[in-house]
């Protein structure tokens, strides 16, 4: 078996394992290590690692878990992610976590943090109020204070309060992680047939629950291996997939989009792992550096306030240009307020710029892909035969 296949088999195993065996094994090999879960979209993983803790991304149960208890907590008009997160927790699959962080992605995740405090009073639970004012003196100072509080609290849980040197080392480590993810995205955009999104996604999903050092090894090895037995080049349309930043689509949907004739050359999948678009400074005050990086160099996404009135209108055209894409697929989870409220603004901006678009909704446990296949297939045909591609 080629290196490429070995890595992807490993990643698939981690992705499908809803008992988080990889994370549990890391903890059992390091008795002083504790694990911190975090919900999408963004959590400062540097702080977790610097506190001698393992960051574990909680992205629900996807299409692999039957929701028995989770539905009792949410009305039918709420997205699927919190149901399966509760199902994971109530079935003791998350019992290895010592703390859970709930970023201010939307009100559903904020409410989930409250539920967690009620259900698991012995666990450290924190609602991360991400700053929306992009002024270093206002939002920056606020976020810096939040980070310092988080450092103190995680230090109490782990028994190791992160020093500045610990934080600098963690920042350096995550600069490496972000670099390799950017390289993977760059390589996919350049030669998408060598780096199918299905594989890239599996690798990045695995990276959400294993130690960052292990992810770095696997990701670097994969980058070297993408020229081994890569699938043949195909004539397909280049698309970006927008709206998939929180509740993740099932793997089958990602495969369906590409099989139907679209190369995904940019996306919002797991966007928290590359939220900071530049390296964070390792010199000086590491907490101030982390805060400044978030305020000044964050990805533009629906979960953060956009101060520029034209920002939403021009964003899609910028992304399409950067990715040399032919069109946009707006794929949002059903009932996802951030994605669905942004969609009309993003789409009208894209269409004013003459960019072909389609839109659909999914849930993490969607099992039928024929309608997506049909939409993506005809979209690809229309771009290839009647568009500019």
């Amino acid at each position, binding site marked *: 078996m080629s290196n490429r296949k070995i890595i992807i088999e490993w990643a698939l195993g981690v992705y499908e394992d809803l008992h988080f065996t990889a994370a549990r094994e890391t903890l059992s090999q390091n008795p002083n290590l504790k694990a911190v879960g975090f919900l999408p979209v963004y959590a400062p993983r540097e702080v977790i690692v610097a506190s001698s803790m393992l960051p574990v991304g909680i992205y629900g149960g996807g299409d692999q878990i039957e929701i028995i208890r989770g539905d009792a907590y949410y009305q039918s008009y709420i997205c699927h992610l919190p149901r399966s997160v509760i199902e994971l927790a109530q079935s003791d699959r998350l019992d290895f976590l010592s703390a859970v962080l709930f970023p201010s992605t939307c009100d559903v995740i904020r409410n989930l943090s409250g539920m967690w405090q009620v259900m698991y009073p012995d666990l450290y639970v924190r609602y991360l109020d991400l700053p929306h004012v992009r002024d270093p003196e206002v939002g920056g100072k606020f976020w810096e204070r939040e980070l310092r509080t988080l450092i103190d609290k995680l230090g109490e849980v782990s028994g190791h309060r992160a020093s500045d040197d610990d934080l600098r080392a963690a920042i350096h480590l995550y600069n490496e992680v972000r670099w390799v993810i950017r390289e993977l995205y760059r390589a996919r955009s350049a*030669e998408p*047939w*060598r780096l199918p999104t299905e594989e890239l996604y599996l690798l990045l999903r695995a990276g959400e629950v294993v130690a960052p050092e292990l992810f770095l090894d696997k990701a670097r090895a994969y980058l070297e291996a993408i020229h081994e037995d*890569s*699938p*043949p*080049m*195909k*004539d*397909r349309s280049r698309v970006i997939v927008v709206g998939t930043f929180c509740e993740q689509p099932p793997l089958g949907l990602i495969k369906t989009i590409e*099989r*139907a*004739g679209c190369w995904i050359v940019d996306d919002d999948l797991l966007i928290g792992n590359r939220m900071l678009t530049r390296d964070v400074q390792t010199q000086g005050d590491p907490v101030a550096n982390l805060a400044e990086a978030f305020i000044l160099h964050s990805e533009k996404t629906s979960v953060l306030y956009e101060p520029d009135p034209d920002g939403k209108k021009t964003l899609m055209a910028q992304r399409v240009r950067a990715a040399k894409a032919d069109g946009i697929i707006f794929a949002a989870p059903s009932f996802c307020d951030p994605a669905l409220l942004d969609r009309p603004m993003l789409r009208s901006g894209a269409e004013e710029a003459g960019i072909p678009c389609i839109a659909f909704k999914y849930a993490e446990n969607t099992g039928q892909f024929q309608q997506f296949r*049909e939409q993506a*297939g*005809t979209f*690809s*045909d229309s771009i*290839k*035969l*009647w568009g500019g591609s």
Partner: protein
Amino acid sequence: MSVTAGIDVGSGAVKAVIMTSQGDEHRIIAKCVSRIRRREIVAVVNEVFSTAVDQAGVEAIDYVATTGEGEDIDFATGHFYGMTTHARGGLFLEPESTAVLDVGALHSRAVLMNRQGKVLTYKMTSQCASGSGQFLENIARYLGVSQAEIGELSLQADDPEGVSSICAVLAETDVINMVSRGISTPNILRGIHDSMGGRFARLLRSIGAVGVVLMTGGLASDVGLVAATQEAINKHDKFGRPLEIKGHPDSIFAGAIGAAIWGDFRHMKLDLGGAAWTKNSTQRSSSAA
């Protein structure tokens, strides 16, 4: 002049054509069809493609296009959706056509297109199999007739027996009852054709088809079905729109033909350089992307 291949992987059969193109002039130089019959689809595709290539006597192909369920054929250059290819293939086979009625093994769909072959709208039969080739094949098996005989037998009917047009299961029960009641095979077959024709007439009306409609797909060679569909249209068309259903000897290849023609379009547009397929190597060099 370019040489392109179109491979249509259906749920019942694999069809392949090799075509030459010079500007807007397209010519079929080889064609091959084979039923899948519980075989590995990849093996059937390889067999059909090899036969067509041998028949064409070509050493290299500029663009190999798949359609239908052929997304995963690894030596293909590109894939086109079934509606897109049937529309273009229909226009090639019958230049006067304004719509195609694709009747396949598992479903049927009506596609309205413009003069360039661009799909304007479409409608598919619902999930029930009663408008599909598989249903007709099952009935033929109950009646002990071959598929090739169905059309001619249906035309001999003198007193067609009505069957359920809603549900394949009910229709099959109807047929078993008819056999036990001694209804003749031609009358049973025509009853089924009438039932399917009624569904197709409604489908075509729903997309606003006017003028010539080419029937494509595996059942297009069934003369009884073509006649019954025409009759249903004449009988049911309350709007008085003239609609003529036509068949073509190569209708079963419409998807593959459309794929090959669109493959030529993409080959010219992309200017990929080099052949997509040669007898020695089945992949275009990646650098040509």
